[in-house]
């Protein structure tokens, strides 16, 4: 019977981590539905970006208020999680505060004291975040894509944090032995008096309760990630690693198009020649993207990484002037559709069955896509190197090259370029007239 808590703990841990692993595998499978891109170049710059942008939060603090608040929660989250290590060891081996046995009391006290202060700061910050979303109603949290689940999700995450931080502090406050050491209880010493009338036995029950709820809460939170916008706490790192390194203005040149163009321009090419061995594999089924499978793995990783902060949308000139386009919605739609495709595959024994839907039209409309000025404000703003613009461009490519569905003025512009080398209907012979005017 004495081992019952240990066994229960091990089972809880296995279920918690097991289910999470299962979903991570699903996430990786879904990302791999996108086409492969080579991002093996310039590893040193990629690691530098991870250190500066992801670890160092360099782009977060460009907006100082939300940036610094976020740093508090981020640092708090990472450091307080060291405590989880102790909880796991205690839980598995039936010890109590193993840290006290292996570390000098002063060091242990310093660590726990730091955790307590951070927990308190996180609590305050999370309350400020909640106020920004629900009382101050900051414009970027009030856009049309932020109703329903995305709004609830944002708040649920904040509630989770409040509960976890409170449990941590209560656990310390009701630990009679820990309080009697009087080191490290920087915050909890002020909470302990709230429980002063209680017997030691009751206190022990509360302490154990808080301890169990804390670790169970963490495991639930871990598993909540996959269903929430909050995956960024993990995916921000690989996403920044795979982020763009070229100048932001450089859009990729489609290789499949290059092949065809070279063939057209080559006077020696035989248009009726049989394709070379293996050449067929290189030609994509379509130009541009109409669904998630046409996007790259990095674009799909982008979609899972987006935490819906809306900095992109708040800087988007189209959105600022009331157009339907919201770069954040582009990312949310991509993720929602990817999840739908993933579930479809799960339901059909690993095979995607056409559901008559696609990203273009059912999620993202042509009106949104044509409102983009390709100004890169969204790309510049994203604190974790997401590129909504690349998805917009790939979908425009599909509209134009597969469906000839550009707005009619743009078709005129393009036929002008084809016919006389300028977007306007002027004669190429007149190009130098300005010299003598």
């Amino acid at each position, binding site marked *: 019977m004495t081992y019952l808590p240990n066994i229960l703990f091990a089972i809880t841990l296995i279920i918690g981590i097991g289910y999470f692993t299962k979903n991570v595998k699903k996430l990786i499978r879904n990302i791999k539905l996108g086409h492969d891109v080579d991002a093996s170049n310039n590893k040193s710059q990629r690691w530098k970006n991870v250190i500066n942008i992801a670890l160092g939060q360099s782009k977060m603090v460009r907006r100082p208020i939300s940036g610094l608040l976020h740093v508090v929660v981020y640092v708090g989250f990472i450091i307080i999680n060291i405590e989880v290590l102790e909880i796991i060891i205690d839980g598995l081996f039936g010890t109590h505060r193993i840290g006290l046995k292996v570390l000098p009391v002063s060091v242990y006290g310093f660590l726990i004291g730091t955790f307590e202060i951070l927990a308190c700061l996180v609590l305050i910050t999370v309350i400020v975040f909640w106020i920004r979303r629900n009382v101050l109603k900051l414009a970027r949290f009030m856009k049309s894509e932020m109703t329903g689940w995305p709004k609830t999700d944002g708040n649920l995450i904040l509630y989770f944090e409040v509960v976890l931080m409170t449990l941590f502090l209560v656990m310390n406050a009701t630990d009679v032995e820990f309080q009697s050491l009087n080191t490290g209880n920087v915050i909890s010493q002020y909470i302990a008096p709230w429980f002063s009338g209680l017997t030691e036995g009751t206190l022990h029950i509360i302490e154990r309760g808080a301890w169990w709820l804390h670790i169970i809460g963490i495991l639930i939170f871990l598993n909540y990630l996959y269903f929430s916008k909050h995956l960024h706490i993990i995916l921000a790192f690989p996403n920044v690693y795979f982020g763009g390194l070229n100048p932001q203005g*450089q859009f990729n040149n489609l290789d499949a198009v290059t092949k065809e163009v070279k063939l057209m321009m080559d006077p020696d090419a035989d248009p009726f020649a049989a394709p070379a061995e293996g050449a067929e594999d290189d030609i994509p089924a379509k130009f541009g993207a109409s669904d998630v499978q046409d996007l790259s793995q990095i674009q799909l990783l982008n979609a899972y990484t987006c935490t819906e902060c809306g900095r992109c949308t708040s800087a988007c000139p189209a959105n600022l002037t009331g157009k339907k386009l919201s770069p954040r919605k582009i990312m949310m739609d991509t993720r929602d559709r990817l999840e739908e495709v993933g579930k479809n595959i799960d339901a059909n024994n690993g095979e995607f069955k056409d559901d008559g839907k696609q990203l273009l039209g059912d999620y993202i409309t042509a009106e949104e896509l044509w409102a983009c000025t390709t100004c890169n404000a969204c790309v510049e703003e994203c604190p974790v190197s997401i590129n909504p613009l690349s998805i917009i461009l790939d979908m425009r490519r599909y509209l134009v090259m597969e469906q000839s569905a550009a707005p009619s003025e743009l078709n005129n512009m393009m036929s002008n370029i084809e016919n006389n080398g300028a977007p306007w209907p002027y004669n190429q012979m007149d190009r130098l007239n300005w010299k003598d005017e």
Partner: protein
Amino acid sequence: MSETLKVKTMAEFMAEGKQPEILFWVGSAGSYDDRAKKITKAFVKILNAANVDFAVLGQEESSTGDIAKRAGNEFLFQMQAVMNIELLNGYEIKKIVTCDPHSYNCIKNEYPSLGGSYQVFHHTQYIKDLIASGRLKVSGDTYKGKRITFHDPCYLGRANNEYNAPREVLQNTKANLVEMKRHKSTALCCGAGGAQMFKEPEKGDKDINILRTEDALETNPNIIATGCPYCNTMMTDGIKAKEKEAEIEVLDIAELIANTGNL
């Protein structure tokens, strides 16, 4: 004021068996648009004043394909690019300067993987170098004490991280440079990019150029400086819509420099 512009084509250089120092890529707007042509000429005056042995492609120049690419027509873009690259490589062009940030970005970043690698300058970068090397002397009080606000073109700024060259060049006008709230990496687009110049905007509650003009008006400027022919059109339209054209001028940096130097 020098009356005649010295402009030679690449074909003329070729016939003389010479190579120019640099090729001036005029671009479609700079060649055909009445407002942009003034910018082209102002820049030529600067090149002439600095004795730069430059060439233009003239009738051989064709759209870079940039707008087509951003509209989603990768085929048309690559057709234009491959054609232009063949021409540029045939003339053994090494250096290119342009007043259009879209051409600048496209040739600099998107032509190399299609076989066209050149050293490409935006005209503000080139003017900056001409002044720094002493080849171009700009002095004059035309704009002394005036308030100038500079609107960053997306394809020079965010797209290529060039925020300083235009500002450094503007110092030579002796004007007071005042920044809009949104400037450099947070600058708001004028609304013309991504082929928007050639279509009606989608339904919304305001045009982008009006919002950007309001940004500029907040600085209470005498002049709005631009570095892109499309931005120039958008801001000029914005100023007209606000009925401020009597008080505020929209001028390209090349024009401001040419006017300052009385070129």
